[in-house]
């Protein structure tokens, strides 16, 4: 029944998936945060309201978000080679994962920032806070629970993306599921990868929820 299972291969694939996840999540959060801040602060009526910048940022995000990830993987191949030196393996998977997830997270960041009480921003302006101080001292800390919740959602979306990245030879659990589970009809391998992915998702969600709960003082 479990004749095709090689624990070392499963462990290797799980490790690859976690590395891809960690690296792409880290980069996506940083880039998404910056992009989300631009989207929010340049929107009408906000601190740095700027119609043109807002329109360009919003359009860029929409373009990237409208591409199905599997297409993005292929479209990005030349750029991936430039950025990562290869389009294969764990390194080759990270650029498309980040380009796929960062705009997604940026929208979640924008939403989380919108939830911050306008009155609090106004009060900080009245105290003589500069725009930069308002962002660092008020906007981001007040939005933190929402930002963490958004990062959790992004992490879980990335678990799905890493599995798809297996299609273009990225390695990891998705790669294992496709090469062994699907192409060689090794149902047991398929089952184990699915269970591993499920466990990863559960752990991320649990950790994220706990963290949000701890951060939120509303």
């Amino acid at each position, binding site marked *: 029944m479990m004749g095709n299972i090689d624990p070392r291969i499963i462990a290797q694939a799980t490790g690859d998936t976690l590395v891809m996840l960690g690296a792409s999540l880290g980069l996506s959060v940083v880039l998404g945060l910056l992009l989300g801040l631009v989207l929010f602060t340049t929107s009408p009526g906000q601190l740095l309201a700027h119609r043109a910048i807002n329109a360009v940022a919003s359009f860029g995000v929409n373009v990237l978000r409208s591409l199905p990830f599997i297409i993005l993987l292929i479209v990005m191949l030349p750029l991936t080679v430039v950025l990562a030196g290869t389009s294969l393996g764990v390194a080759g998977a990270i650029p498309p994962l980040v380009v796929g997830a960062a705009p997604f997270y940026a929208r979640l960041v924008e939403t989380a920032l919108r939830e911050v*009480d306008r*009155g*609090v921003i*106004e*009060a*900080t*302006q*009245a*105290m*003589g*806070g*500069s725009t930069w*101080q308002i962002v660092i*001292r*008020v906007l981001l*800390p*007040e939005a*933190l*629970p929402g930002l963490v919740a958004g990062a959790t959602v992004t992490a879980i979306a990335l678990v799905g993306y890493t599995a798809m990245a297996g299609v273009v030879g990225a390695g990891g659990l998705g790669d294992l599921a496709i090469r062994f589970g699907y192409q060689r009809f090794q149902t047991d391998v398929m089952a184990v990868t699915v269970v591993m992915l499920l466990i990863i998702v559960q752990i991320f969600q649990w950790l994220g929820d706990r963290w949000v709960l701890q*951060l*939120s*003082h*509303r």
Partner: protein
Amino acid sequence: MTATAVQDEQEIIRLEQVSRRFKDGAGGRVALDTVDLSVGRGEIFGVVGRSGAGKSTLVRTINLLERPDAGRVIIAGQEIASLAPAQLRAVRRRIGMIFQHFNLLHNRTVHANVALPLQLEGHARAHIQARVAELLDQLGLSAHAAKYPAQLSGGQKQRVGIARALACSPQILLCDEATSALDPETTEDILTLLDRLNRELGLTIVLITHEMDVVRRICDRVAVMDHGFVVEAGAVSEVFLHPRSSETRALLREALPPSDAVVGAVRARAVFLGEDAFHPVLSRVARETGVDFAILSGRVGRLRHAAYGELEIAFFGAQAYAGIQALRQAGVAVEEMAA
């Protein structure tokens, strides 16, 4: 009048011909229309009006949270609309502000909320710790230092708001409907506190409210706003005794408990100020003129600096006007009301 930037020493806030229009709908909506205002150093100045009268916009022009379309805003002799951003921020640090909904940071403790303006001003950690501890002690909040705003009552939240507003030792405190979200008892508590801060620190307070009672309780002077105009301004006792605008009269009437119309009577609002409030003027007038009267509603309380009584009275019979006349001669401000 061509005013220079150098102002009377006693004047700390001066608005000259300030106008502000919001761009919603055709032609926009006028929030402020050529408003002139002068607030003296160390006074408690009330701005009263209904919602939409422009008072919130008015208070926000004092620290330029709202930029006027026209006119000048002068704080302590300095015209601030033309200042560079960094200079304006320095002026704002000397102007504290508190709000109807407190506007505290949810994810900061009471201590950290009060520390925020000091952090923005770039003080050393040790100085911030000491100053926050001092403020919390002064406002009776020391026991709540580690709590988050969600764990506090409305009155406590507003005290935190006040502590935060005072952190940088401002000369001016702006209060935007600061007691409107509080119950009567807590309102009284906060007003007493503001009164104390005014006396102890010489703090100039500009207080926006829709409640005449708040004005009566602690303000020295008041401006009444209606549709973007200041329709009346002056000492509180003067405005309460001799309201000149119909809007002021309406606001004063609404501050009294409602009473039913009385058929065949002349209704009037009588205001007793100072020692008069304690003299048996009404009974003497009734005895001398033979007028019959009924008290429909009323209250006795205090203006900031004087005893104060306000009655809505129905005078009956042929002697009704003689009664009113006699009351006026006794120094009571009487104003006939529409039946």
